[in-house]
C-alpha cells in the first residue's frame, strides 16, 4: 500500500530532483561511513594514549618502589659491613626518588584521587628517607667511636619505626599501582569495545553503501527507461503533428482552389457580360451573350452556395465531435429501399448496371435516416461518377451480429494504395489535374455522418479491379 504511493510520489517529482536524489544516495552513504570511521578512529587513538599513559605511571611507580627497596637494602648492608660501597645504591636511590615522585605527580595530575594518594606516598617516602638518614648517621657515629646518644630500646623503636614506615610506603605505592592497574584494565576494555564497534560500523556502513548503490542504479535505470519512453512518445506526437500540419496545408491549398475557381468564373462572366452590355446600342437586337453570361453566373453562384453549405456543415460537425446528437431507434429497411432506388437511377444515367442485395427483415439502428442517406448517396454517387461505362455497381447490406455493413462496390479504375488514407480528407483528389466533377467533399461528409453514428467507413481498392466502400453501423438488438 505504501510502496505504490511512494512510487507514485517519486514519479511525480521533476526529473532534476530525481536525478539529484539518485546521485545523492551513494554520496550520502560514503560521507556517513567516512565520518563514522573517522570518529571511531579518533576515539581509538585517545584510548591508546590513555593505556600508554597508565602503563607509564605503573612503570614509574615500580621504579619508585625499587629505588626505595634499593635504598633500604644499601643501608642494611652498610649497617652490617660498615663499608661505604654498600651505600652506593642508597645514594643512587636518593637521586632517583625525588625525580620519580615529581614525574608521578605530573603524570596523575588529571586524577584527583591519585593526586591525594601521591601526597600520602610522598609523606611516607619522606618519612622513610628521614629514618634512613638517621640510621646512617647513627652507624657513622658508631664507626668513628662516638658513643651512641641513643639507648637499646630507642634503637629498637627506630628499627621498628623504619620497618613500619617502609611497609606503609610500600602499601601506599601498591595501592597506587593497583588503582592504576584497574584504570589500565578499564581503558583496555574500553579500547576493545570501541574496536569491536568500529568493525560493526564498518560492516554496516559497507552494507548500507551497497544497498544505496543498488537503489541508485535501480532508480537510474527506471529514470532512463521513463525518459526513453517519453522521447518515443514525443517522436510519435511529432510525427502525428507533422501529418496533421501537412493535411491542414493540403486542405487550405485545395479549399482555396475550390473556392476561387467558381469565383473566377463568376467574375470573368460578369465583367465580360458588362462589356457586351456597354457595347449594345439602342435599336440593335439585345446581345444574346449577356443573357448567357447571366445564366452562367446564376448556375455558378448556386454551385458555390452548395459548396459553402457543405463546407460549413463539415466545419460545424467537426467542431461538435465530442457530442453526438441524440438519435432515436429507426428501422433501416424502408430507407435502404429508397437509397437503392436512388443508386439505380444514378447508375442507369451513367450507363452502368446496378444490383442491390438486402435482407427482408427489419434492421434497427440508432440514427437519423436522412443523414445516413446523405452518406450512402454520396458513396453511391462517387461510385457512379468514377466508374466508366459499361461497369457495374453493387449495393449490399450485410447484417452481422453487432454491426450492420453497407457495401458499395464498383468496377472502376481503382485507387492507388498511397491515396487511400487521404480519401476522406476534404477536397482531396487522387488525380488533382483531372477533370473534377464534384466538390471533393462527398467522402469527408459521409465519413463524418458515419462517425457521429458511432460507425466506421472503410475503403478497400485494387487498381484496375475496382473499389469497395464499406459503412459499418452499430446495430440495435
Amino acid at each position, binding site marked *: 500500500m505504501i510502496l505504490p504511493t511512494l512510487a507514485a510520489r517519486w514519479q511525480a517529482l521533476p526529473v532534476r530532483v530525481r536525478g539529484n536524489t539518485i546521485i545523492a544516495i551513494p554520496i550520502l552513504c560514503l560521507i556517513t561511513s567516512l565520518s563514522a570511521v573517522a570518529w571511531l578512529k579518533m576515539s581509538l587513538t585517545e584510548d591508546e594514549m590513555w593505556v600508554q599513559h597508565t602503563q607509564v605511571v605503573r612503570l614509574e611507580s615500580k621504579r619508585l618502589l625499587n629505588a626505595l627497596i634499593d635504598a633500604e637494602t644499601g643501608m642494611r648492608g652498610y649497617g652490617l659491613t660498615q663499608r661505604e660501597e654498600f651505600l652506593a645504591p642508597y645514594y643512587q636511590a636518593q637521586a632517583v626518588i625525588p625525580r620519580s615522585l615529581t614525574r608521578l605527580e605530573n603524570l596523575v595530575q588529571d586524577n584527583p584521587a591519585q593526586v591525594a594518594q601521591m601526597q600520602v606516598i610522598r609523606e611516607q617516602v619522606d618519612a622513610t628517607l628521614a629514618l634512613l638518614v638517621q640510621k646512617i648517621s647513627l652507624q657513622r657515629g658508631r664507626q668513628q667511636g662516638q658513643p651512641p646518644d641513643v639507648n637499646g630500646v630507642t634503637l629498637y623503636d627506630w628499627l621498628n619505626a623504619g620497618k613500619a614506615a617502609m611497609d606503609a610506603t610500600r602499601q601506599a605505592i601498591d595501592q597506587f599501582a593497583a588503582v592504576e592497574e584497574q584504570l589500565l584494565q578499564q581503558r583496555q576494555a574500553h579500547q576493545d569495545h570501541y574496536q569491536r564497534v568500529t568493525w560493526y560500523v564498518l560492516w554496516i556502513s559497507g552494507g548500507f553503501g551497497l544497498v544505496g548503490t543498488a537503489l541508485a542504479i535501480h532508480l537510474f535505470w527506471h529514470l532512463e527507461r521513463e525518459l526513453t519512453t517519453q522521447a518515443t512518445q514525443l517522436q510519435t506526437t511529432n510525427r502525428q503533428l507533422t501529418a496533421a500540419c501537412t493535411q491542414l496545408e493540403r486542405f487550405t*491549398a485545395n479549399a*482555396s*482552389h475550390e473556392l*476561387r*475557381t*467558381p*469565383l*473566377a*468564373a*463568376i*467574375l*470573368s*462572366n460578369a*465583367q*465580360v*457580360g458588362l*462589356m457586351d452590355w456597354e457595347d449594345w446600342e439602342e435599336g440593335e437586337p439585345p446581345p444574346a*451573350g449577356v443573357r448567357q*453570361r447571366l445564366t*452562367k453566373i446564376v448556375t*455558378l453562384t448556386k454551385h458555390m452556395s452548395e459548396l459553402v453549405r457543405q463546407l460549413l456543415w463539415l466545419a460545424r460537425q467537426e467542431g461538435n465531435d465530442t457530442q453526438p446528437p441524440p438519435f432515436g431507434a429507426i428501422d433501416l429497411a424502408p430507407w435502404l429501399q429508397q437509397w437503392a432506388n436512388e443508386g439505380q437511377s444514378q447508375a442507369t444515367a451513367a450507363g452502368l448496371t446496378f444490383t442491390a442485395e438486402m435482407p427482408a427483415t427489419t434492421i434497427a439502428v440508432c440514427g437519423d435516416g436522412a443523414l445516413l442517406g446523405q452518406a450512402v448517396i454520396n458513396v453511391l454517387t462517387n461510385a457512379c461518377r468514377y466508374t466508366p461505362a459499361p461497369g457495374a455497381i453493387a449495393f449490399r447490406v450485410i447484417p452481422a451480429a453487432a454491426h450492420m455493413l453497407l457495401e458499395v462496390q464498383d468496377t472502376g479504375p481503382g485507387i492507388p494504395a498511397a491515396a487511400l488514407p487521404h480519401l476522406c480528407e476534404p477536397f482531396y483528389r487522387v488525380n*488533382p*489535374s*483531372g*477533370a473534377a466533377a464534384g466538390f471533393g467533399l462527398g467522402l469527408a461528409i459521409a465519413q463524418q455522418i458515419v462517425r457521429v453514428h458511432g460507425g466506421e467507413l472503410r475503403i478497400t481498392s485494387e487498381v484496375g479491379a475496382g473499389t469497395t466502400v464499406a459503412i459499418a453501423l452499430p446495430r440495435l438488438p
Partner: protein
Amino acid sequence: MRILLVEDDPEQREPLQAALTRSGHIVDGVADGAIAQTLLHDQPYDLLILDWLLPGVDGVTLCRQVRHAQQSTPIVLLTAKDTIAEKVQGLDAGADDYLVKPVDVAELLARVRALRRRSPHWCGDVVAVAELTLHLDTLQLHYHAAQVQLKSGDFQLMEYLMRHPRQVLSHAQLEHALWTWDEAPESNAIASRMRRLRQRLQPLGVEDWITTVYGMGYCFQPPSPS
C-alpha cells in the same frame, strides 16, 4: 496578337477568350495541356496564358518546355495557387507574369498590353502604312482627319493586312492566321469578311487599297506616293 489560352474549366476559359477576342486578339482556347503542346509546335504565338493544374501536361511544365526550346514568347500564369513559394516556382519556371484567380478582366487585358510592349517586335501601339494608322488599344483606324471604329473581327483582318503590305496573301495564309484552331472557316468566309472590311473602310475612302488578286488571294496595296 495570337494568344494561346490554356484553361481546363470551360466556365472560366470562355469569358476570358471572349474578352481577349473583343480586344482584337486571335485566341486559341484549349482545355488540355497535351493539346496545347501540339499547338505550340504548329503555330507561333505572341502570348501564352496558362493555368497551372491541367489535365495532360501542367502549366508550369509547359512553361519550362517553352523556355527550354529557347522561345521568348511572353507567358502569363493564371492560377488559383497563391502562396509565395508557388509564385516563385511559377516565375522561376519561366513565366513573365503570375496572376492569382479570380482575376479582374480589365487587369488581365492591361497585363496583356504590357507584355506586348515588352516584345522585341513592338513599335508603338499603332501600325501605320502610308497615312493610315491602326490603333491597337482602341481598335480605331485613322486616315487624315477621319476615323472609324472597327469591330474585333475586322480589326484582326486589318491588322494582318497592314502588317504584310504589298504582299499577295493566299486564302490558306489568311485562314491559318485569322481562325482559331477549333474553327473551320466556311468556303466563302474570307470573301465575306473582306467585303465587310471594305464596307467599314468606305468612310475613309481607302477601301480600294485592298485588291483582289484573282485566283491567288488578296493584297493590301497603298497607292504609290506619285
